[in-house]
């Protein structure tokens, strides 16, 4: 019994990480109806940036966040302003194919630069610290911190969206681009800010991923798929729904892994497909796709 409680608890905690993968994706889709296929590879890029920062400056991964987050935000702003803004429009093909091309470029660029060696960021003793919640159930400190940060990030994004001027700009542009421009918003700037924010969240997610597990240039697409599944399960356009979606995905994978280690990923995918079959709009939808 406690074994299953343990399993579910671990699933919930990693669900927070998946929710962070998904939050950036959900944000961009909400504001500009763009699905960034390079999202997973950008997470891996953030991990490698953190690797470079920690190696050259000799600081810990969590401290490196102070540098990595702004760096990725700037990259996001430039990416949107210079490249992705050109793809936005009614046609479905350009943003999809351009972000797909970007995904391949990032993967192979990282492969050329860093080789296919598996890397990991060392966070020190915090990685293996655990504390006991109750009889037979332990919680790792790092996963708990990641979960709390994930919830905080999503709460922060909600606050930003609904209580700040930038959030008003996001919502206005999302509702009607043309009228938002009439109201004086520079939509190119708004989109770029949305992408910058998304990449900032990606940076946090990437560093957490790098501390938690090994990473190499090829693991990007799998992160994209987890984020995507979390978004669809939770429902498009809802941040808290994305958190729930991530948790459901994490728990499914944990239960699958407990039944048979080879079933971990498959269990997550099957739960996703089942929810897609039964309730395609997700659990808490706000925006129609």
């Amino acid at each position, binding site marked *: 019994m406690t074994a299953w409680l343990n399993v579910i608890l671990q699933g919930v905690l990693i669900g927070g990480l998946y929710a962070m993968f998904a939050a950036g994706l959900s944000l961009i889709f909400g504001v500009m109806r763009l699905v960034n296929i390079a999202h997973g590879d950008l997470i891996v890029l953030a991990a490698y940036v953190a690797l470079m920062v920690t190696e050259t400056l000799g600081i810990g991964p969590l401290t490196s966040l102070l540098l990595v987050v702004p760096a990725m935000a700037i990259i996001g702003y430039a990416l949107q302003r210079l490249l992705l803004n050109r793809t936005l429009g009614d046609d479905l093909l350009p943003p999809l194919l*351009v972000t797909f091309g970007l995904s391949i*470029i990032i993967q*192979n660029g990282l492969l050329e630069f860093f080789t296919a060696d598996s890397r990991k960021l060392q966070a020190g003793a915090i990685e293996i610290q655990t504390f006991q919640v109750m009889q037979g159930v332990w919680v790792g400190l790092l996963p708990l911190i990641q979960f709390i940060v994930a919830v905080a990030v999503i709460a922060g994004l909600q606050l930003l969206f609904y209580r700040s001027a930038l959030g008003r700009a996001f919502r206005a542009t999302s509702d009607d681009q043309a009228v938002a421009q009439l109201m004086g918003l520079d939509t190119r700037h708004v989109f770029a800010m949305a992408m910058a924010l998304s990449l900032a969240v990606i940076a946090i997610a990437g560093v957490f991923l790098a501390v938690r597990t090994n990473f190499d240039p090829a693991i990007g697409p799998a992160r994209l*798929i987890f984020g995507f599944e979390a978004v669809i399960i939770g429902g498009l356009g809802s941040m808290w729904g994305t958190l729930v979606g991530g948790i459901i995905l994490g728990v499914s994978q944990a239960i699958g892994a407990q039944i048979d280690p080879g079933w971990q990923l498959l269990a997550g995918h099957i739960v*996703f*497909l089942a929810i897609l079959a039964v309730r395609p709009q997700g659990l808490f939808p706000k925006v129609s*796709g």
Partner: protein
Amino acid sequence: MSPIKIRVEHATVSSRIGVAIIAVVLVVLALAPFWGDRQMLRLLAEIFTFVALASLWNLLAGYAGLVSVGQQAFVGLGGYLLFALVILAGVHPIAAILIAGPIGALVAVPVAALIFRLRGAYFAIGTWVVAEVFRLLASQISVLGGGSGISLPAAMVISMAPTRQLREFEIYWLALALTVAVLGAIVALLRSRHGLALTAIRDNEMAAQSCGIGVARIKFIVYVLTAFGTAMIGALIFLQKLRISPDTAFSVNDWTAFVIFITVIGGIGRVEGPIIGTIIFFVMRQTLADLGSLYLLMMGAVAIVVMLWAPQGLWGLIAQRFGWQALPLQRHLVLAAKTEEPGGIP
């Protein structure tokens, strides 16, 4: 008043030249075993399979508007069906290829029912998820090698033909025949009423719907037909490779990234596009030494540049500039009025 007779003409000067060139090229290619060496035959067979895969993807994405980054699901499915039928049921490899098609189409039906609930880019990622599920399921099947894969038994390969040279000729002609069949089917489809509907959907989906075209139904049928063709090509690819594993069978890079880049660079939404794109792709691959990941990087960059500044691709640019077509697919309305009384409508 006399009725104005109209008829639809498909051929133009350029298409007549194009068809003639294609006919000559096909004859030359059919005789390739007599003028080419082993490497040339393998290269040509690889080119054929990419032309077929890209043409099918073009039908799906360029005409029906279903951008799938998960076609590797059916390539791998075809490959695994070949190995399963040959190893477990003792079916002749060529028969297995022909069986893989209908089974692929059958599998595509529930898959389509599921992922058609998603739209646009989410649909694209959904197809990727399906491919991942297929890959994970394949690595669970231990009788077909599980995660490390399996090779085709020598006895079954030898049963195809008595000598190795004859076997290679057989596989080559099979590749050529399958590719010609796929392209022929695509051209036939586009010449038909359904092709007209598809072309309308390609140009403007909403307008097509308002003309009464059943867009959802046509998309479903195109998805299933594409899965049919892709599964057969997948089976052929792995017959040539003689070995399969989940990672190679369901590889995004090999079966989707290259196919997408080929189609985008050659010209999406036109039948000639994938053919041109494949030629460019292989010329680049042969002339540029094996740069590995740098090569993929360059292709990605070229694809992005093409998508942003020349979204109609190379053949699209040519067709727009000169109005050429290599295959008789256009539809010209020709008025041929006949008057029976003087002073009638000229």
